[in-house]
């Protein structure tokens, strides 16, 4: 288990490259303590489980969606860090999952990190990205009578004044 002093990002990146090879797209060090990597949605559960078991990355700070309108895709970003017994590690790992824009869905990670439950609900209602096997995919922030198939954080959603 890692401690506060011993975070070695390049070692983590090398280990991930060795273990998963092509299945992880360019894990790289953005700046100290910040690793970014892109993962296909077919492999995301396995890799997430590996991250949690190996590096004690047990806390998801945020789940957000990005709408790339021109490239016709969404990207779901999980910012994963650690609240392990050794103290709060400074390492933050951004796990990016690209999703198709026409039929947006990906597997839910609630089975690995329980804290993503309401984050994924929020991403679902604001972007329309469906999380398969999510235990409770209901509206969180929007009113109950919000119309179906309107997702306010998508780039092609128009506000009243626009």
């Amino acid at each position, binding site marked *: 288990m890692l401690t506060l002093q011993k975070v070695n990002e390049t070692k983590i990146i090398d280990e991930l490259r060795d273990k998963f090879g092509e299945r992880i797209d360019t894990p790289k060090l953005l700046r100290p303590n910040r690793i970014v990597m892109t993962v296909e949605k077919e492999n995301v559960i396995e890799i997430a489980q590996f991250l949690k078991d190996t590096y004690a990355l047990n806390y998801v700070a945020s789940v957000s969606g990005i709408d790339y309108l021109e490239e016709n895709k969404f990207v779901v970003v999980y910012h994963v860090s650690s609240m392990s017994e050794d103290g709060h590690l400074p390492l933050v790992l951004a796990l990016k999952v690209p999703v198709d824009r026409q039929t947006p869905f990906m597997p839910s990670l609630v089975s690995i990190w329980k804290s993503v439950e309401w984050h994924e609900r929020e991403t679902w209602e604001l972007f329309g990205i469906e999380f398969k096997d999510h235990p409770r995919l209901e509206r969180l*922030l*929007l009113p109950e009578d919000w119309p179906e198939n309107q997702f306010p954080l998508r780039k092609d959603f128009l506000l009243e004044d626009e």
Partner: protein
Amino acid sequence: MFAVGNAFVGILRNVVEKIVNVKPVRYLVNWARLYSLWPVHLTTACCSVEFGAASCPRFDVERMGMIQAFGSLRQCDLIIIEGTVTKKMGKRVKKVYSQMASPRYVIAMGACAISGGIYYNSYNIHKGVDEILPVDVYVPGCPPRPEALAHGVLMLQDKIRKGRVNITKGE
């Protein structure tokens, strides 16, 4: 039996309303109301911090007759809308308002509660709480200082004293 009882209550209510509407009595009733404003502590956004400060010793609105926010909704007769009201919260605000005892007064506090503020073109907010509730006093600011809120309370008391408040009957 119940019919007779109801008829009796109806007559009694009419008589009481007649008595209350006599001018000196009306003045006395209003006078009693204006120094016992019980606010609901319903935090919708960040203006509640200033609301909290207003009841604390430094600003102390209690000396003007607005009691600190505590107690049940059934005792309350003043609701201060503290900031942005989202559409989801709007339903809850309405529910809270309809549970309060009549006569009840509404103060819209801050730019968001008045007109939507910086969120005026958001997909998820009411552009001013007067879309859903009958507002008596608007307190501008972002957020208003506790003194501004105290001034709003004084204005509301002035309205009550002069009988210019629209008293909504309970639902």
